């Protein structure tokens, strides 16, 4: 009887090259853990170098995969390594690399577990890297949880601090709730379509149109994702969590982990509910339309009232999330109209916006960390007269804020440009209405991004202390990297436009 029960498991063909970036990340995790064990406590901050080298190392197989040129479909298309996935993997890895640069001195000087910090960052990055390639509900879910669970711990990392504790518990409850909603939605989608692979779900959708139950299931999944990307009205955890978490973790949450949620959203909505002919798009674009309009408007209006720069950046990131949803909704509108080509162009606008937002937001947080090294404060009033104390930092901060606002010839301008182009391409009344809301909000955003700039230039410094702010090398490198991306992309946007075109 026993022999009847044994099963021969055929070893699946395994493309090691396709998995090389992820394997490098896993190897780095292990080395970081072992090194943390071997190094004496006082030296354990050096694990950051291992993490940084490992992250840069993971870029090598990505480069060779890009060079090899052809798309790789593994497991019948459940795991795809194409240009879209590779571009995002590279983005996630570079964003984490910059986060490591931001963290080195912050973590070294505080009373933290050092090796574990970098280990958890790497686990989260590994989840993002898998997410970029996932085209199946199961691996999508597992990847999203691999992104989220380490970040719950990271948000609570300053565990003797009440604000950090609260940041952690709020983020955790919302995170787990959103995965429960998403999972229930996925279960209904699976039940109706009988498939877990996104391409099969899309095939079902284009054949049968949208069943009412699928619309509800989609709605539940979209609400789950809306929590993850902190879209209004599911954003209320974000400001508290951003303020309470250690600042480098906040930078990571607002860029890498938010981008992870966005990529999950793109994968499930675009590859699952959209392709091959976009007929099912009319069931999800209204949800995204509403989320985009609410996030932009509310995020901006509340950001106007903030006196703390981290909270201001938190609400600004809610609003920026809304701007990113604008071309997404436009893609749905174009798809429902029967223009899959325009929809693909709009989706590449989402990716371009995401990449640019990553560079400018990480940069802004880098400056916040540098200034807080001296002032120990994140109030906007602590930026009074920064121009006199540290003109370099003031200029760089000005560049990041101007870029976030969308001032021409910084990268943020190009992000806004592709967003509006997607709207105009879609062209229907609903699209134009969303475009008008976005335009009004771009103007509102100027006011609050200008406030720290005004404080830096026109207010007198509050202290007599004129000793220059000492910026440690890694932090300097992070600022230099992000500012050069923001300036270069602002002047030669073709660099990123090309990445976006490759993707879709």
């Amino acid at each position: 009887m026993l022999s009847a029960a044994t099963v021969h498991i055929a070893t699946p063909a395994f493309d090691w090259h396709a998995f090389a970036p992820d394997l490098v990340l896993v190897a780095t995790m292990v080395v970081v853990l072992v090194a943390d064990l071997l190094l004496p406590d006082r030296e354990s901050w050096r694990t950051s170098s291992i993490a940084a080298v490992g992250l840069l190392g993971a870029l090598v197989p990505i480069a060779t995969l890009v060079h090899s040129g052809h798309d790789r479909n593994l497991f019948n298309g459940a795991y795809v390594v194409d240009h879209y996935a590779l571009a995002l993997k590279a983005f996630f890895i570079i964003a984490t690399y910059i986060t490591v640069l931001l963290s080195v001195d912050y973590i070294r000087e505080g009373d933290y577990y050092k090796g574990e910090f970098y280990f958890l960052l790497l686990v989260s990055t590994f989840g993002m890297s898998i997410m970029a390639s996932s085209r199946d509900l199961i691996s999508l879910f597992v990847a999203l949880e691999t992104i989220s669970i380490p970040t719950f711990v990271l948000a609570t990392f300053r565990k003797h601090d009440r604000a950090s504790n609260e940041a952690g518990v709020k983020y955790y409850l919302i995170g787990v709730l959103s995965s429960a909603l998403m999972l229930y939605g996925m279960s209904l989608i699976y039940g109706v379509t009988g498939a877990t692979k996104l391409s099969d779900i899309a095939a079902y959708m284009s054949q049968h149109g949208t069943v009412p139950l699928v619309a509800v299931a989609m709605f539940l999944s979209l609400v789950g994702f809306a929590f993850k990307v902190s879209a209004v009205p599911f954003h209320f955890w974000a400001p508290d969590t951003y303020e309470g978490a250690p600042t480098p973790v906040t930078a990571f949450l607002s860029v890498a982990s938010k981008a992870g949620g966005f990529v999950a959203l793109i994968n499930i909505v675009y590859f699952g509910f959209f392709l091959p002919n976009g007929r099912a798009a009319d069931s999800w674009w209204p949800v995204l339309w509403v989320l985009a309009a609410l996030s932009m408007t509310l995020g901006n209006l509340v950001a106007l009232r903030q006196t703390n720069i981290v909270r201001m950046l938190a609400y600004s990131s809610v609003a920026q999330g809304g701007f990113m949803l604008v071309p997404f909704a436009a893609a749905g509108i174009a798809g429902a109209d029967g223009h899959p080509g325009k929809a693909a162009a709009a989706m590449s606008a989402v990716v371009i916006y995401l990449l640019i937002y990553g560079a400018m937001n990480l940069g802004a947080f880098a400056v916040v960390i540098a200034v807080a090294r001296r002032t120990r404060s994140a109030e906007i009033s602590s930026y009074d007269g920064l121009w006199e104390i540290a003109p370099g930092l003031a200029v760089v901060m000005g560049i990041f804020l101007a870029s976030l606002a969308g001032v021409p010839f910084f990268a943020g301008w190009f992000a806004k440009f592709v967003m509006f182009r997607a709207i105009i391409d879609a062209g229907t009344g609903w699209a134009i209405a969303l475009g008008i809301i976005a335009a009004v909000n771009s103007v509102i955003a100027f006011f609050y991004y200008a406030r720290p700039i005004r404080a830096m230039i026109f207010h007198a410094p509050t202290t007599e202390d004129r000793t220059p702010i000492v910026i440690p090398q890694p932090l300097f490198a992070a600022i230099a990297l992000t500012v050069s991306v923001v300036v270069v992309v602002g002047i030669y946007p073709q660099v990123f436009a090309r990445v976006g075109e490759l993707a879709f």
Partner: protein
Amino acid sequence: MSALAYPDHITATYYLVLAAILFTIGAVGLLVRKNTLVMFMCIELMLNAANLTFVSFANALNDISGQVIVFFTLVVAAAEVAVGLAIIVAIFRRRQSVNADDVDLLKG
């Protein structure tokens, strides 16, 4: 309503309706309770409802992936609970309360 009128055999719909009811009870619990531990338990109820839905569909569709996804959900849920309780223990070290409403240092 025809399915519910013929109770001579059980259809997948019965299981799905049970799961929907459990999901709703979990969601309500999450809204009305303020003890963090009980809120976790309510989320577990919702996850369990999702699992029951997956398994019923796996049976109705005679498809294996419904079971596989439940296996993964169970593992992930265990990891989530471990981290969540660690966070609660860390909070409790600082302050002797686990009520979500007491956690209101940051607002607005």
